[in-house]
């Protein structure tokens, strides 16, 4: 049996057009051996969730700099539940005020990484989270 790769969707919901952060994390994950499905800019939550389902992703990373993080995180997590895919790990980053993070975690986000987080921390966290998820399968 060949090695099971981590499959992760990296998505940019909403209207902000800054995808540098998303690209940096996509590269870091690829360099750690993951398969990164990159959706491009200005995705709706529906598009992101459809992509996660079609690609059978273990996780979805959301990059938001527009300030609409609470809406998008909640919406995506809710839609994954509706689609019987609540096991998919949701994480993200971008410009997200510290005060908003507990709310996102309560809503079901696995982790939220702020600016300045080393990519290695994010990669390590995801690898552990996916290992835990698979252990439960």
């Amino acid at each position, binding site marked *: 049996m*060949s090695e099971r790769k981590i499959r992760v969707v990296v998505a940019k919901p909403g209207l902000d057009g800054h995808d540098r952060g998303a690209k940096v994390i996509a590269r870091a994950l690829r360099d750690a051996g993951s*398969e990164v499905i990159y959706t491009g800019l200005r995705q709706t939550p529906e598009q992101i969730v459809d992509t996660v389902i079609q690609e*059978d992703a273990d996780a979805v990373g959301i990059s938001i700099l527009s300030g609409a993080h609470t809406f998008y995180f909640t919406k995506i997590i809710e839609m994954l539940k509706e689609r019987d895919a609540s096991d998919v790990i949701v994480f993200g980053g971008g410009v997200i005020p510290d005060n908003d993070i507990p709310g996102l975690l309560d809503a079901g986000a696995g982790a939220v990484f702020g600016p300045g987080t080393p990519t290695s921390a994010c990669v390590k966290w995801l690898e552990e989270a996916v290992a835990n998820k698979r252990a439960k399968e």
Partner: protein
Amino acid sequence: MENLLKKALNGDIRSIARIISLIENDTPSKDELLKRIYPLSGKAIVLGITGSPGAGKSTLTDKVIESFRRRDMKVAVIAIDPSSPFSGGAILADRIRMQRHTGDPGVYIRSMGTRGSLGGLSRGAKESLILLDACGYDVIIIETVGVGQSEVDIIKIADTVCVVLVPGMGDDIQIMKAGIMEIANVFAVNKADKPGVDRVAAEVRLMLDLVKDGEWTPPVHLTIAEDGTGIEELVNSFIAHSSFLKERPEGRRREWRRLAFEVEGVLLQKLTRLAEVQWNSYRTDEIMDLLLARKTNPYAVAEDVLQNIMPCDRADHRVTEEEDSSDVAANDG
């Protein structure tokens, strides 16, 4: 697995996606599953779209999906991007150009990494086709970058191969040496609004006159994928080629060849796995030290490992070698 398969055959996308992962990961239960679904396959048009990076394959595929959807056909796409040879990871980004089709239940898009397979097309891709076909997709498009062997590999799985060319990528010798003349059933000369497009089309047509064999002459279409120019004609050619294969003896020959490749591919995969397992269990530090000191050689070691897999009488080999050398000697005389 049983439940998953039942749901997949009823069109549940999550189950289809799950099974494709099982296939890609080469799960032990995979073979049984493939044996089960194989009889349900064989109905879909399998279309390969290949060409150099930047030729516009994904954008073209996006428009081709749209055209098939207008004809009320369900479409599945397997978009293949190269895996990194260093980390084994991959950035799979062909979807970007096709994201507008998410939400259409008649379109399924799956991204795959090549995962180190030599031909650029993983067995995962080949076997996922069977599932998507069995699940009722009318057209399955495999989009793959044509570098090295993969454009040749695609004829092993696709019924109809479309090679995408663009002006400004090199001269006719490039077209000739790439081996694409032999594999293309339909040509798309994309970015037809760029200068030099007529020359590329003329060169392809000229080359086709030289290599032409069989009853099908590959049509050459000028396309601008960005705005959809030429796409309807292109898709008409795909469908025409598909009907041609169904009606003519050439289709039967092609299918014959494809199936022979298929068996060979499965065999090779199994033998490779067997060889890996045997070598890993045979390998010791002593052997590695002997190799390092050049007291033995990779050929002798490989032969010993092979002996474990397929015991054969070595004396026979020696006799053959001697016969060979005596033949040579006789010829010299």
